[in-house]
């Protein structure tokens, strides 16, 4: 039996700082996806929401919140929370429901409204909370991104100029994307002139946080055939594996890695796509386009290696050669990535799938990757959450 499901429709609310309720963004994206699928809202049997932690109770029950906002019609609902992988887990819940025969058509939505200012822990004296402890000691989110970036420089000889090339590339890609927040063709000089945040990373090396929403209508392959969409883009794999002990890379919000004294150290980022490739029966050599989580410019290069698009330490050469630019051998982040979007946590993993769907349909306009047949996403967030999704024609 096929383990694939069809992507019938996609929709997004543009990323930005719009100051509105997250439900409004989600409904806009959901309605666009329903329209794109050419179905009726009442045909949707399952609503799978990605939760937001920043918008009170409606955010904790996002599936029901969106179902109510679109008009209660008796569908079943689900809500998933998995930090940056929330959207992928919501998609995985929909896939399970479809492949087990419990429903034919599902709507998956992720939406967020982000607060102004620094991401900070809860107040009070809480030495049992690693997130509180690290802020007490002066270690913020960019500290971690910068440690990874500096490690690349120390191990492989990458430079800040290499990191800047990633920003320049993504800015070019996102320039014509109507859903991107930042649409300006930044130059390497702009990056170099931006303020140092956490050496070697400057302000323009690090992604912002945004409001935004993304939605998908997914169905069984049989249903897609029935409504005349047998050629719809398919979800071929969803990996949401946890890390394997002992995690060898220092992860936010921890102050130390696991000890590899008695078991071998493992890389979480590298494990995520392995399961996805296995499930899809595809390999890195089949990939035409990728959307990866560029929380920082340097982190995008880590992903090239974790996705096995090149060997360890070879990512900077890919960037220098222009291989990951549009028109290159293997374009990465044709959407513009987080560099042009800013992170809207529960929507981001779904936005990656939306972009790949446009790409595989040949409907990505100025940012089209010619002849793309297979695409892969990758993201990673707090507390052992991450995902990798493979879509194919």
């Amino acid at each position: 039996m096929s383990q694939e499901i069809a992507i019938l429709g996609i929709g997004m609310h543009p990323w930005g700082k719009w100051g509105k309720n997250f439900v409004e963004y989600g409904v806009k994206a959901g309605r666009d996806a329903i329209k794109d699928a050419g179905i009726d809202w009442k045909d949707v049997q399952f609503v799978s929401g990605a939760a937001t932690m920043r918008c009170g109770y409606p955010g904790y029950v996002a599936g029901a919140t969106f179902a109510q906002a679109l008009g209660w019609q008796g569908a079943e609902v689900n809500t998933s929370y998995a930090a940056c992988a929330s959207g992928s887990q919501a998609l995985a819940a929909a896939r399970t429901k479809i492949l087990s025969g419990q429903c034919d058509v599902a709507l998956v939505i992720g939406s967020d409204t982000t607060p102004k200012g620094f991401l900070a822990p809860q107040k009070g004296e809480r030495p049992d909370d690693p997130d509180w402890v690290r802020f007490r000691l002066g270690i913020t989110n960019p500290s971690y991104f910068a440690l990874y970036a500096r490690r690349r420089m120390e191990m492989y000889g990458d430079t800040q100029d290499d990191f800047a090339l990633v920003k320049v590339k993504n800015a070019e890609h996102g320039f014509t994307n109507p859903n991107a927040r930042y649409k300006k063709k930044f130059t390497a000089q702009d990056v170099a002139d931006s303020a140092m945040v956490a050496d070697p990373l400057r302000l323009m090396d690090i992604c912002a946080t945004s409001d935004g929403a993304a939605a998908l209508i997914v169905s069984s392959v049989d249903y897609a055939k029935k409504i005349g969409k047998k050629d719809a883009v398919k979800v071929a794999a969803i990996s949401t594996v946890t890390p394997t002990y002992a995690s060898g890379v220092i992860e936010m919000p921890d102050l130390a890695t696991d000890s590899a004294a008695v078991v071998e150290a493992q890389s979480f980022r590298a494990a995520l796509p392995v399961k996805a490739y296995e499930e899809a029966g595809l390999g890195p050599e089949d990939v035409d386009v990728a959307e990866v989580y560029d929380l920082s410019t340097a982190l995008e290069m880590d992903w090239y290696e974790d996705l096995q698009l090149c060997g360890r330490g070879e990512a900077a050469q890919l960037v220098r050669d222009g291989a990951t630019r549009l028109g290159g051998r293997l374009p990465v982040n044709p959407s513009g990535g987080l560099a042009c979007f800013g992170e809207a946590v529960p929507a981001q993993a779904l936005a990656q799938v939306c972009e790949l769907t446009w790409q595989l349909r040949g409907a990505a306009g100025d940012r089209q990757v010619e002849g793309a047949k297979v695409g892969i996403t990758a993201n990673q967030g707090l507390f052992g959450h991450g995902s990798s999704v493979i879509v194919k024609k």
Partner: protein
Amino acid sequence: MAKQQVPVLEGWFTIDDRPHLLGTRCKSCGTYYFPKQSVFCKNPACNGETFEEVKLSRTGKVWSFTNACYQPPEPYVSPDPFEPYTIVAVELEKEKMVVMGQAVEGVNVSDLKAGLEMELVLETLFEDEESEKLTWKWKPVA
């Protein structure tokens, strides 16, 4: 009279001339923990529930490093005006783990490179009316 010196986190390190971070070690499988783990072992192949407190190696090699150019939010207590500081991740050979901390005052990013030998020292993180709050910091071995 000098203010009393107290650890910013109680029980996380020893206070003496040759300070050590305090971790635990699983009595069943021998894996190390920092911060301390004392209820159940996180090694999936181990059901251990008893631990001994251990002093972690007080020297190691630089894994990576960065700095903080902007003032972090609370609960960080900043001098006014804010002073940037350096952050180091140090690999401990015996424990096979990487531990972060600030670098001692005066050590900049340009003073560091991967593999450089570092040792653990104590320095004041901040002070309030009653006491100086001590923390561990990493210092290049002279």
